[in-house]
Every structure is written in C-alpha cells, then in structure tokens.
C-alpha cells in the first residue's frame, strides 16, 4: 500500500488528553475494585501489573495509532489510512455518506475538539470515525462532505419544527426512572460498605444518640424495609431525572425535504442529520404515568444497529399526541386508521395457562425448599387472568393506507407504524400450543429491527394472519413496482 501523501491530515494532538483521561478512569476503577478488607498480595500485584501495562504498552500504542491515522477529505470522497499492525486504507465515496454526526462531550468541549462519525448505509466496517479533530475542522468536514455534488442540497430550515424548552425538559425528566444508574449506585454503596468507609450500624447508633430515632424504631424491620424501598425508588427517580435532563437538554429537531436534523445534550453535545431513507419505522412509547398526563415519546427505528440505542433514535423525547401526529407524517406520510382488529380471544386462554403454570411450579418449589406458607402465592392466580385479559385488550393492529399499525403491551405501551416499502421479509411462527388453538404470530422484518424490540402481532387467528400477509405482500409488490428500488 502506498504511503499517504503530504496533503493527508492528522487528528488533533489533544486526542492524547482524551486517551490519557480514559486510561486514568480505567485505572482508578480497577484500583478501587481491587481494594477491600480481603486485599491480598495477589490483587495489589495485579493492579501494579495493570498500571505497568497501561504505561508501557498502551501509551506507545496510542502514539503509534495517532501517527498511523491520516485522513483526507474532498467533495468526492473521504480517505482514511489507519492501523498499527494491520494497515487499512478506506475510501468512503461522498454519495454513500448518509450522515455526518458531530459529537462533543464535556472534555472535548473544554479542549475545543470534536469527534466526527461518518455514517453509511452499511455496517460498522464501512463507516468512518475521526476522534478527535478540532471543532472548526469538524464543521469544515461536515460542510465539505455535505455540499458534495452527489448529495441533495437542502435549504436550511428557518425554524425548529420541534424543540424542548428548559421547562419541558424538566417536566419530562420527572417521568423518568433509571434502574441502571440505581444498580451502579448500589454497587458502589456496597463496595464502600465492604471497605468499611460507610458503617450503617454506627450511623444509626449515632442518630439514636442524638435523639432523631428511638432504638425500638431502628430495630423495627418492616419500617426499615419500607424505608429502603422508598430510598431505592427515590434514587432511581433522581438518577432518571438527572440522566434525562443531561441527555435531552436543549433538544431541537428540524426537518428539511430529505433529512432530519437534531441537536441536543447538556454536557455531551450531539448534532447530526438523519436521512429519511434511513428511517425504517416509527415507535411511539409511553409509560403509565406519562399516559396519565397524556405525554408520549416518538422514536425512529433506523437503518444499522450501530446507531442510537439498539437501533432507535429519539425524535421527540416528550411530546403531546397532536405534536407527534403533526411531525411524524412529514417524515413518512400516514393517516391513522379509524378502527383496529383485535387478536384472537384465545390469547387470554394461552397466556393464563402459561403464567399459571409458572406460578404453580414456583410455588411448588418454594413449598419444598421453604415452607407451606408459599401456598399463599396461589392467590396471585386470579391476577394472572386479569393480566392476560389486559394484554388481549391492548393488543390490536390495522393495515391502512400502506402502513401497518400495531398496538402492544400493557404498562410500557408500544405503538408501531411500519411503512410497506420498509418490509424485508415476513415470518409467521406458531408454537405447538398456538397450533392447537389455531393461532400464530406475525413478525414483520425491517432492516432496522433489533433483537429486543421488533414489530410483531402475537396470537392472530390463522385466517387473519394469512389474509394480512397476503395483503402486505401485494401492497409491497405494488409499491415496489412503482419505484424499482427504494434503497439506492
């Protein structure tokens, strides 16, 4: 491979500050976790070895990586040379570039750097990531690659179509709960407990001494338990509040004739545009509290699993139903159907039996290992029927005006809108029990469906499934006949 010529540019020298910062965090983490009352010679040696590896190997490697990384952008293409052991030259033609995303976290905002991600329709292997370049250079790259001759030049939008003022961000944060951060906080808490930095017993004794508590209260376990539960919920709520505030601060979304432009974040500023072609389907979600106050969240399922959270990008993190119906059809037109078809009533039977089975088996197990008190668990059985009934009521679908609409789930409700032209394949599955009841599940595969969340209709009557698949397939063929290919 020929060496890159002189015109090729290097990354910003302050990239090193980023990598040094990252290794300090990694080192501090491993050091903290290796501490504890049972600290042995072995664990401290391991920490020492880790530190040496970091300094002796990772340091020069970072320098070599920096030296090897060169890039050159013209209005036609972006060329990147990289790799220490395996050298790679990657050409990304400008017409393949779907999006140029600029991300700036707190550190890079202090240092005046930015990370630029060049997204294509392909996988991770075909994308480019320049971390980090100067902030002005990032803007230059974005303008250069965007104004290249093959991409359509959209007029800049005059005003933001949807934005969240501080008040709404604060309100939306009130509805969030983060179990992830709660878990992390509790891990840290127990780590500190085991290090004897925090002593719960001593704290309670101290509070009793000062007269805030009475000894009897501190020994009263139902009170302690409920206090802990309240504390956990409050922690999760607070963490969710802060996380949401930091993430969606100053959220703005603008629409041009072909692209969605978004900008958001308090510390980490995210900025990027998303082509309409990348949008695979709409997902409107809500939790019970949000629904009670009539708030919803619009997410876009996008092409490629690398982008966003499991392939989903927030388009309107917190909005009224009417606002969503105002914006979403501009990305891909749709009209809501007037009526929906329910799934089969037999789904109640199937789910009741399935859930009851789980409960009966676990009660039997608890009876064996604990005591016959576990038989009280059988009182949950009527609730099972209620859950199955609710599940049936909340699950319905419609195929209307070249879009498939699916409503699902009880608490964290999902509403899917899938345009016909995004279908990749259809799958009808039926388990042994479903076949006995004449039911089946229809799964519509799009190019963005993740493993966790994907559109499906569970327990349809078999006849309905056949008819719907036929309709969907016909509509798809008709539409594909019109435009010969929608994925250029």
């Amino acid at each position: 491979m020929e060496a890159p010529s002189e015109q090729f540019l290097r990354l910003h020298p302050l990239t090193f500050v980023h990598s040094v910062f990252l290794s300090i965090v990694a080192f501090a983490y491993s050091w903290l976790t290796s501490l504890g009352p049972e600290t042995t010679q072995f664990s401290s040696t391991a920490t020492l070895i880790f530190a040496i590896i970091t300094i002796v190997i990772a340091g020069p490697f970072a320098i070599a990586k920096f030296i090897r990384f060169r890039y050159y952008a013209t209005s036609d293409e972006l060329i990147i040379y990289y790799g220490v052991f395996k050298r790679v030259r990657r050409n990304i033609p400008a017409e393949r570039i779907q999006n140029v995303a600029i991300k700036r976290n707190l550190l890079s905002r202090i240092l005046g750097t930015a990370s630029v991600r060049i997204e294509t329709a392909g996988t991770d292997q075909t994308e480019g990531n320049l971390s980090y370049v100067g902030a002005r250079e990032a803007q230059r790259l974005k303008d250069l690659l965007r104004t290249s001759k093959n991409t359509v030049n959209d007029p800049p939008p005059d005003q933001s179509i949807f934005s969240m003022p501080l008040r709404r961000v604060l309100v939306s944060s009130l509805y969030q709960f983060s179990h992830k951060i709660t878990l992390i906080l509790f891990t840290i808490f127990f780590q500190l407990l085991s290090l004897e930095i925090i002593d719960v017993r001593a704290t309670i004794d101290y509070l009793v001494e000062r007269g805030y508590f009475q000894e009897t209260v501190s020994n009263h376990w139902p009170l302690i338990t409920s206090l802990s539960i309240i504390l956990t919920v409050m922690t999760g709520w607070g963490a969710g509040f802060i996380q949401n505030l930091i993430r969606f601060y100053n959220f703005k979304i603008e629409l041009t004739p072909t692209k969605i432009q978004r900008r958001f974040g308090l510390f980490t500023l995210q900025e990027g545009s998303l082509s309409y072609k990348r949008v695979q389907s709409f997902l409107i979600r809500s939790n019970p509290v949000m629904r009670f106050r009539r708030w919803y969240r619009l997410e876009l399922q996008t092409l490629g699993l690398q982008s966003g959270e499991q392939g989903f990008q927030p388009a309107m993190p917190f909005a009224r139903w009417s606002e969503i119906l105002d914006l979403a059809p501009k990305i891909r037109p749709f009209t809501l159907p007037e009526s929906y078809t329910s799934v089969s009533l037999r789904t109640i039977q199937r789910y009741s039996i399935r859930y009851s089975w789980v409960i009966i088996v676990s009660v039997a197990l608890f009876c064996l290992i604990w005591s016959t008190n576990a038989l009280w668990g059988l009182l949950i059985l009527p609730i099972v029927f209620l859950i199955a009934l609710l599940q049936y009521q909340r699950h319905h679908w419609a195929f209307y005006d070249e879009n498939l609409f699916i409503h699902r789930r009880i608490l964290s409700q999902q509403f899917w809108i899938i345009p016909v032209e995004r279908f990749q394949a259809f799958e009808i599955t039926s388990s042994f029990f479903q076949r006995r009841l004449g039911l089946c599940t229809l799964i519509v595969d799009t190019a963005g469906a993740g493993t966790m969340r994907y559109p499906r209709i569970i327990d349809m009557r078999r006849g309905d499934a056949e008819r719907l698949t036929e309709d969907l397939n016909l509509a798809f063929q008709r539409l594909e006949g019109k435009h010969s290919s929608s994925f250029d």
Partner: protein
Amino acid sequence: MIQLLALIGEDGELNTIPPNLGAVLPVTLTVDIILFFSNNNFFPPGLRTGILLVLSLSWILVIPRLRYHYWRYELRDKDLCAIRGIYNRVHTIVPLRRIQHLDVEQDLIEENFNIARLVVHTAGTRSTDVVVPGLPYDEAVRLRDTVREFIGQSID
C-alpha cells in the same frame, strides 16, 4: 397464498427437501456426540451413559426425520417461501426484490453426499439469512440462478 398455511405439516404443493438431508443430519449429530463423549471421566460407564446413548440414538433417529418432514420451500413468482420447525413452526416469506445476495454453501459432509444449502441474505435483521438446506447440488445452483435472473431483471 391462502392455502399455504393450511399446508403446514401436509405433503403437497410445496417442494419437500430431498431425503439426503435425512442421511446428513445423523452424521453431523453423531460427530457431535462422539466429541462430547470422547474425553470425560464424569459419567461412569454405566447407567447414565446408557440412558444418554439410548436417548441420543432415538434423537438421532427421530429428530432429523421430523425436521426433514416439516421442511418445505417454494420459489414463487415474486417471493421465496420456507416453512420449518418441529415445535415452533416458522413460515418465512422473502420477497425476491429484497434479496441482497445468494450463496450456495457446502460443507465436507454435504459435499460427500453431493447436496448443498442455498443461503438467501436480505438487509433485514431478524431473518437476515434464510437457509434452504439439503438440496441436491444441481438443484441449489439452478435455484440460485433463477433467483439471480429475477433480481437482475428487477434492477434493470
């Protein structure tokens, strides 16, 4: 299309997969089992091994046959249908326009029996690869060429 689902589990209009598959699957399964049992002292050479062997033997005899029995595929005008599964019956329909590329694959054992698998790749994320196994090699190549021709036409 309407009759298709009714056809699950019945013989009839859909092509069945050639019985060679029935010969290949036991071989691969036996290899797995030999590997599994080759290097262990955990099971005493007695009851448990015996039970396991009987179970695996009946598994070898029954499962591939069942799997073979339920495997169906059909290449239609504008899509490819495949039905498979013993407990969970999965019926996949891939519109031919959505096919990104096609492979005819053959491993050593399959090569020995002169059969091949047709692997159909789409851009979708769930049924990315639709596999039609156990085809005679010529049939797999013929199928691939037919589909390729269709894809070529639809792009022109």
